[in-house]
């Protein structure tokens, strides 16, 4: 699953640690999600989308092998 978290972070000029603190997860978890290694739960995905004020389907996109 692809995502645009890095782009959204760059727009707000915040670090992975800042986002992690807002979502209440660890920095490694944000890094894993951002690099596509870990697929977050619906709750975490919705929290991230709400933080960036974008629809969740704009932030996360399914890939053909998903």
């Amino acid at each position, binding site marked *: 699953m692809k995502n645009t978290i890095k782009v959204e972070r760059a727009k707000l000029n915040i670090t992975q640690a800042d986002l992690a603190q807002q979502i209440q997860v660890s920095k*490694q978890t944000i890094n894993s999600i951002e690099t596509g290694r870990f697929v977050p739960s619906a709750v*975490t995905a919705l929290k991230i989308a709400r933080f960036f004020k974008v629809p969740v389907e704009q932030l996360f996109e399914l890939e053909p092998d998903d």
Partner: protein
Amino acid sequence: MYDYRGKLAGIGISAVGFMLVLAEKLHPFSLKPGWTPEQHYGFFVWVALLGLFLMVFSKEKAEDERAKLVRLKAFQISFMVTISTLMAFSLMTSVTGEPIGMDASFMNIVPATALILYLLVFHVGLHFDQVWEYEDRGLFDNWRHIGRNKWGILAYLVICAILMIILVLL
């Protein structure tokens, strides 16, 4: 489960336990009159295992969904290895027909295997970002991830080598 302070307490207790084990091995001493060095040694090993137990059953400071997933995988692996160890001992006893000595040192092997393996898998998985911890796709499909996990594999090898050296020295 305990909160993350349980982990700190566990680290302290196991460190004290391991230092006493080492001290007892190098220079046998007596804390309780009437106890043999072997009894002291067995008790100190038990203290070290108690510390490891506290560490295993304590949460991380940031216990999020990824930590829970890695924890689950670590529990699965350590459970399977522990059961395999017991089955190996059971087979040996059945085939040879000779009962294995169930002394304290043997009884410590099973929990020690489970606790140390769990801690190893969990912490390397959590801090070295193991792809295979998240994607349960079977052994062969995971080979392609080895390149992406080189630091994690290196950490496993280094920690295992240190543990082996400690075990050989003891």
